[in-house]
């Protein structure tokens, strides 16, 4: 007897459209993806099934700079399961030197193969 096929529904978060995408799985293998209107949607649901990932954004405390908080992000998505651990690490960080937008704050952040980067320039207090 063959396993009944399983369908899962997802809402794509890649753009504001929010396509509803249906994935058909046969014994855990994706056999059909419908409802996506671009290839990003397909990549999104494939990741959702194997290892859901998200770009993490937060802010890091700055000391002696023009702003108190410097916004940061992971330059690539990280595993959803790592978000809370990553936040704990971000809370420990301090930035003392001026940064430009896109500057790496932590290389290979938590050994996840992504960089934590500043998303705004921040100068010294004038």
């Amino acid at each position: 007897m063959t396993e009944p096929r399983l369908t899962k529904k997802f809402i794509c978060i890649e753009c504001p459209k929010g396509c509803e995408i249906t994935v058909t799985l046969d014994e855990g293998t994706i056999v059909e993806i419908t409802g996506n209107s671009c290839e990003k949607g397909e990549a999104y649901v494939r990741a959702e099934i194997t290892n859901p990932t998200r770009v993490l954004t937060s802010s890091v405390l700055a000391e002696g700079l023009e702003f108190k908080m410097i916004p940061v992000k992971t330059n690539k998505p990280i595993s959803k399961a790592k978000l809370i651990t990553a936040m704990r690490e971000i809370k420990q960080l301090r930035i003392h030197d001026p940064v430009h937008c896109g500057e790496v704050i932590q290389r290979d952040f938590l050994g996840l193969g992504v960089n934590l980067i500043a998303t705004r320039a921040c100068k010294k207090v004038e």
Partner: protein
Amino acid sequence: MTERDLVIVGGGPAGMAAALCAYKNGVKDVLIIERDQRLGGILNQCIHPGFGLEYFKEILTGPEYAQKVTDEIRSIKQIEVSLRSFVVKLEPHKILTILKPGSLQQVKAKTIIMATGCREKTREMIHVPGTRPAGIFSAGLAQKLINIEGLLPGKEVVIVGSGDIGLIMARRLTLEGAKVKAVVEIQKESRGLIRNVVQCLNDFDIPLYFSHKIARIYGNKRVEKVAVIKVDDHFNPIEDSGFSIDCDTVLVSVGLIPENELIEMAGVAIDKKTNCPVSSELNTTSIKGLFVCGNSYKVYDLADSVSLDSEIAGKQAAEFLGSRL
């Protein structure tokens, strides 16, 4: 009194896009008046990704989007930026009174673009009964406290309304270690983008109650709990459907109101229901040569759409100036 070709009130995405486009269409004397200490407007506190896909063809956070546009503004010396400057008066013949640190100035403009954005609706506007303790914030204020000031507004949070800012803050608060106990939405569906329900609530198992409202806020010094009740199709409470949630913080995310008090002062016709200017064509008002763009013209879902439509305002202002020569 100084005279300027084009004065733009507001240095957020709308004002900056309008300035750049006006410049590209031949306006070489532009003044942007911004009340904050930096350009970028509300984008500065929107540190989450999701901006720019349409306008820049890449996914950016709010500050990155702001930085890109700001860098371009700063590279053009014919666009002057006056920070920490607040327009207190606008007269129909296009005279602006501007309050700056240490001075009050008047500027006569040949044309004006108002890009003043929105403010948030408050608890008072949705008539939530109960006490008035500390711990009640609009969602955007909470966003500013966390992302700009580095302050956590509370530990156990209930969010009223499922507007995008509220959804984004549900995730942000959770990541910062607060417990978001519920989002309570009186409508049958989310007011925010569906992707934000997915990535901000579902990702963190935050319950979203549709067709529910906050019946009362309790607490003396600080919020202690809220009473929640189910409503019918006419938003009337359904008896015996109530329950309460212990919390120390309530965020209100129930929509935005365009800020148009200045143009109203100048005599522009305003739709009292929406607080938008009465307008027959995009960005125009009942006063010729006085344009409104971005969220003060109408409430947009996306910053990208604000930038695109505000570019048109820049072009309209350039054409108006051209026709006067």
